[in-house]
């Protein structure tokens, strides 16, 4: 569990800000439901479909980050458990778990894998990862594949199988390419080494069976060392993330889906595609410009097929904990139900205060705030909005 402790200065200003934030927005941390959870049922009436699209347009956009797991975002679900195989064998076992005994897709299946981990012989060393210039190994190391399956509400609704990939093309805030961070990391984990070997190790010329007590002691020492490392690396990661909150980066993702009638792989049709791209540009030590584009094509029994482009641009000025921001968000929808297209656009500007890891309080002016403002509301945005959270790469809260 993340503890999300409040940062001391934030604690002091929280009450003040809560009083001030009568115009603040309680932005939901949900992605746009351009997906099967909202729009999957074959039997739904056109009116339902139009309502769904209208509701999407009303929401416009609340999350502007490339998703961590594109397949799950495509499905509109948050998997309870995600298989993350670290070996080829685990990957095959994970894939097999997505199919039931009758050869049909299993509901709730979610798997995320790095090709580097699951394809034997593809491993790369830290030096190879850090090689300067065009580095295919770096791209491969930052490629994540995801798979998921979900069924929309209703017993007869088809299952949607989604597949996705996420690729960090460039990230100036990657700590594992920073020699200073690596040196500090090496020094800090080295502090967790045991002072001496464990007592009671059998001699080489007198081999004896290792006792269960000795094994238990080794396990205890292992747990202690790993806890110690975790404590050191979390501190380092936090410090690094704070210093690189506005690093330049480019990330893209793709997700597609197949609708499986009665969960059968033989009876499938394409459900749609979605592509995300974000690019962030550092400007000095205290500013960052971000652009976001998300293209979607949803296909569902023809009548409810549509395409949409969601876009955004934002400028942050401040620090990792307090930002002034201005943003323009919009969405253009083509071939929407009812004929023709639709569009929505909004702007806003204001101040955001990081209350805890990945939790932001937001107050400001603009379309987004006006639409959703409520008296006494304080926005707590529990997501990696715009992908600038401290947790975006280092997960120091874990």
């Amino acid at each position, binding site marked *: 569990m993340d503890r999300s402790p409040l940062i001391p200065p934030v604690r002091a200003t929280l009450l003040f800000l809560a009083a001030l934030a009568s115009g603040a927005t309680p932005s939901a941390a949900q992605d746009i439901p351009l997906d099967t959870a909202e729009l999957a049922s074959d039997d739904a009436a056109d009116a339902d479909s139009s309502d769904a699209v209208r509701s999407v347009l009303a929401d416009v956009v609340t999350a502007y980050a490339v998703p961590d797991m594109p397949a799950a975002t495509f499905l509109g679900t948050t998997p309870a458990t995600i298989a*993350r195989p670290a070996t080829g064998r685990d990957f095959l076992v994970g894939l097999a778990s997505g199919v039931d005994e009758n050869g049909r897709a299993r509901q709730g299946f979610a798997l995320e894998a790095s090709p580097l981990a699951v394809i034997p012989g593809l491993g790369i*060393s830290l030096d190879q990862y850090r090689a300067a210039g065009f580095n295919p190994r770096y791209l491969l190391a930052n490629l994540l594949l995801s798979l998921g399956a979900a069924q929309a509400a209703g017993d007869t609704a088809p299952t949607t199988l989604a597949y996705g990939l996420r690729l960090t093309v460039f990230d100036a805030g990657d700590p594992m390419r920073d020699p200073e961070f690596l040196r500090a990391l*090496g020094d800090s984990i080295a502090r967790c080494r045991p002072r001496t070997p464990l007592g009671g190790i059998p001699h080489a010329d007198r081999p004896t069976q290792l006792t269960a007590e000795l094994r238990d002691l080794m396990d205890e020492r*292992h747990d202690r060392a790993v806890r110690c*490392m*975790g404590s050191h690396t979390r501190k380092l990661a936090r410090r690094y993330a704070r210093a690189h909150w506005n690093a330049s980066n480019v990330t893209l993702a793709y997700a597609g889906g197949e609708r499986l009638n009665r969960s059968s792989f033989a009876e499938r049709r394409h459900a749609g595609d979605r592509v995300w791209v974000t690019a962030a540009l550092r400007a000095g030590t205290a500013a960052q410009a971000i652009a976001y584009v998300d293209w979607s094509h949803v296909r569902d029994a023809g009548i409810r097929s549509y395409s949409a482009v969601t876009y955004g641009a934002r400028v942050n000025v401040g620090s990792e904990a307090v930002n002034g921001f201005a943003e323009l968000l919009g969405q253009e929808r083509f071939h929407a139900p009812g004929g023709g297209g639709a569009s929505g656009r909004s702007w806003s500007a204001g101040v955001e205060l990081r209350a805890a890891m990945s939790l932001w309080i937001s107050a400001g002016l603009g379309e987004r705030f006006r639409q959703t403002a409520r008296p006494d509301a304080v926005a707590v945005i529990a997501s990696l909005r715009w992908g600038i959270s401290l947790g975006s790469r280092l997960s120091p809260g*874990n």
Partner: protein
Amino acid sequence: MPAHVGPIDPTRPIDIEIAGLSSHVIAFALWSRLPDRDTWTVLGQGRTGDGTFGPHILTLDGIPHAQIYYWIAASNPARPHAAFHARVRISQHGAVVSHGEIDIHGTTDAAGNESVEEWIDLL
């Protein structure tokens, strides 16, 4: 289970090389113990990964039935739950001793860390 490495040529020193083969920072500590002794002596410690040096090589007298105890830690906070790979290679006079290549595999935890503690019997 400890690795059994050898036979060791008692007339030559042995080289022990520690290298990280995955995108993790590796820290290590090694001790050695002579046959018929109960105490361990520090052989060396260090870390890889900052690009200023390659694999570490430590030297020990070639003594059959001596032992090497190692602690190897791997860390990559940007990549939790990932497989790591390190290697301890024991060679004499430039050639790897029989069974002298010990691959250390593991999976890091949610914070991207893991450590392994084990020993090697020289035959």
